[in-house]
């Protein structure tokens, strides 16, 4: 028997989860994480490839066999150090990365059977570290005397802040909201990413010397040129893709129709699910319709279920194959009793005399020829219109570039869709001393890609701060 065959005898280890009937009504985390023995067993499945495909699949090129090897040897602190060479937020990425299309999609074991559960192992190490009373916080390099401003505290901004503070620069993060974290805080729900994890990571950054200024709407409170005038030597712009798209159909301004951004911000950031202990209210939908097929739609639907809805239906205009949401999240949503109405598109929201939503009118779709992006574009089936009662709807059909900062900064060059033009390799923009990355450059992508952009930019910014533009 070859080494490889032996390894494959151990099946991919499942991760314990809260049972669906219970978790659909609470906000606690769904997957519970690997116990130590399970993690070691799963790590043992990795055959330590010489040229590992998994590493190519990770946008930041984590040394995956390297950290997995440490788990097998039960050297967990060694493992976490290996991880952190490339990824400052492993507890986050281990949970929310779409591993099935990134690292795990390239794992050699996936060719014949199931890939190594790289994400779960990453999460295991990060959670292990958090449970230790002493976490070792790296010492920054001697102070360089240079000042860096980071605009936006999402994963991209946090990455730049962490990397540059370690290089000895003085870093200040400016955030429009009253708390840092970006989409990790206000978008992704507690049951997928407990906020305690995020606060822990942000605290580590604070201990390394990063300063956070909240309630700082850059572009309104202070402009980029003013930041330079205040003595900042370089600026990283990572303001995300915070502009909600609506459908543009009649009745969209009825009470009970939300953008996903509003719905999730009310429940996550403002903790409306704890109303009236927390002051922010939320319409309590009994029969909820969520429009869209991405992760954001799944998060909205699962939140509505936890808020006590009797039924939650996801309405998506293409078929299951085209749904951009992670397979795992679709699966979780189904387990929790969320219904899917595929190849369906809303054409109108209907209200009562008080302007409250009472029903939605939809049409059925069929898939036509593949379009430029390779996806088959949906077409309306004539005469297929139907109306379904609903008292709450969440529109989750994507986001665009929020113009608040860019419209007040003419020095930045934007593309046709309003995103900032930045060099792919370095993140340099057309404005001297300014870098940009994450969703405001690429459009809504993933956490790890936003972090990857931050890594590249931090390197280029460090070169600039020490060598010049």
């Amino acid at each position, binding site marked *: 028997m070859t080494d490889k065959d032996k390894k494959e005898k151990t099946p991919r280890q499942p991760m314990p989860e809260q049972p669906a009937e219970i978790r659909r009504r609470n906000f606690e985390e769904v997957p519970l994480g690997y116990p130590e023995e399970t993690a070691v067993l799963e790590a043992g499945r990795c055959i330590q490839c010489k040229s590992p495909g998994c590493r190519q699949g990770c946008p930041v090129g984590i040394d995956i066999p390297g950290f997995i090897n440490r788990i097998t040897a039960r050297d967990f602190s060694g493992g976490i150090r290996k991880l952190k060479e490339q990824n400052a937020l492993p507890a986050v990425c281990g949970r929310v990365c779409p591993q099935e299309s990134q690292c795990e999609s390239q794992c050699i074991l996936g060719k014949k059977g199931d890939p190594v559960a790289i994400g779960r192992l990453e999460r295991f190490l990060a959670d292990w570290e958090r449970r230790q009373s002493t976490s070792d916080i790296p010492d920054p390099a001697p102070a360089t005397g240079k000042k860096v401003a980071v605009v936006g505290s999402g994963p991209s901004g946090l990455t730049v802040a962490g990397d540059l503070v370690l290089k000895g620069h003085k870093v200040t993060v400016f955030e429009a909201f009253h708390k840092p974290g970006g989409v990790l805080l206000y978008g992704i729900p507690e049951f997928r990413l407990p906020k305690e994890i995020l606060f822990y990571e942000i605290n580590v950054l604070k201990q390394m010397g990063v300063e956070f200024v909240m309630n700082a709407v850059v572009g309104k409170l202070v402009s980029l040129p003013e930041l330079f005038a205040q003595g900042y030597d370089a600026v990283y712009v990572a303001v995300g893709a915070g502009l909600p798209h609506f459908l543009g159909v009649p009745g969209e301004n009825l009470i009970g129709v939300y*953008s996903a951004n509003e719905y999730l911000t*009310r429940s996550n950031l403002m903790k409306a699910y704890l109303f009236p202990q927390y002051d922010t209210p939320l319409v309590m939908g009994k029969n909820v319709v969520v429009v869209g097929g991405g992760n954001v739609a799944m998060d909205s639907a699962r939140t509505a279920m936890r808020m006590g809805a009797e039924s939650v239906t996801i309405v998506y205009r293409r078929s299951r194959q085209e749904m951009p949401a992670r397979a795992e999240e679709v699966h979780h949503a189904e387990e929790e009793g969320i219904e899917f109405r595929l190849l369906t598109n809303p054409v109108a929201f209907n209200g009562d005399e008080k302007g409250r939503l009472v029903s939605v009118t939809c049409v059925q779709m069929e898939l036509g020829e593949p379009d430029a992006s390779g996806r088959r574009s949906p077409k309306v089936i004539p005469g297929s219109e139907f109306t379904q009662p609903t008292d709450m709807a969440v529109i989750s059909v994507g986001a665009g570039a*929020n113009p608040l900062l860019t419209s007040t900064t003419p020095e930045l060059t934007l593309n046709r869709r309003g995103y900032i033009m930045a060099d792919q390799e370095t993140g340099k923009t057309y404005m001297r001393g300014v870098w940009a990355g994450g969703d405001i450059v690429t459009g809504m992508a993933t956490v790890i890609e936003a972090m990857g952009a931050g890594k590249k930019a931090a390197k280029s910014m460090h070169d600039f701060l020490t060598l010049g533009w």
Partner: protein
Amino acid sequence: MYTILNRRELAMGTVVENVVAAPLIAKKAKPGQFVILRVNETGERIPLTMADTDPEKGTITLIYQVVGKSTALMKSLAVGDGFQDIAGPLGKPTHIEKVGTVVCIGGGTGVAVLHPITRAFKEAGNRVIAICGSRTKDLLILEDAMAAASHECTLCTDDGTCGFHGFGTDVLKDLMEKERIDLVVGIGPVPMMKFVCEVTRKKHIKTLVSLNAIMLDGTGMCGCCRVTVGGKTQFACVDGPEFDGHQVNFDELTQRLAAYRDQERQSMELFEHNQCACGTK
């Protein structure tokens, strides 16, 4: 924390004025802009227009009517207390220019929002006529400040206890008969703004109104504040809060403002209950 440096009650305690230390915002704010604040960790984000700013002293002045839980909680704050968060300045500043004769008409607490705008139009060289209305004498606010900020100031009350007996719009109608008016700025309760627009529409007088839609982030990220203007959806927090009143769908705004009536009542009852139970204030 953003500390309250000065506090006074207006309109028999139904309206409160707080002067708050917020030096960076004070330096940047322009008439017509607002802030979003959060009283404490469990608080909601509520928008309030800056009624005044003092860049030298680093303060902003907020004047708010006590209408529900958050504003009742704010009323209970004393000098030395503060707000956990204040973000701003938000929204587009009022477009101030020399147009000729400007009528600034305010109702209720709307007068507080109107005051810096009135002053700015006067400073820009316009002839400014102010009309301030309320239900009754005791609820009028900022009469002296408005008189100083304008060339002419008419007070009016619904019950005739002070100044003109009737609505501000009656005074406006009268003025429209008597002289040429180039611009009207109307700020107050939604029905009042709607009524002002109906009056000025007949003579095609450009009319600005400030829309108090329910808001959350105030940066155009959530779409919660959407209003229909000229048949198009706009976000009041970034595209406004001021709009051409003749284009605004006021009925939709009125409905959307009632979105959370039940929860607001529940919140207020709980707050009042807790206030009694612990015997403070």
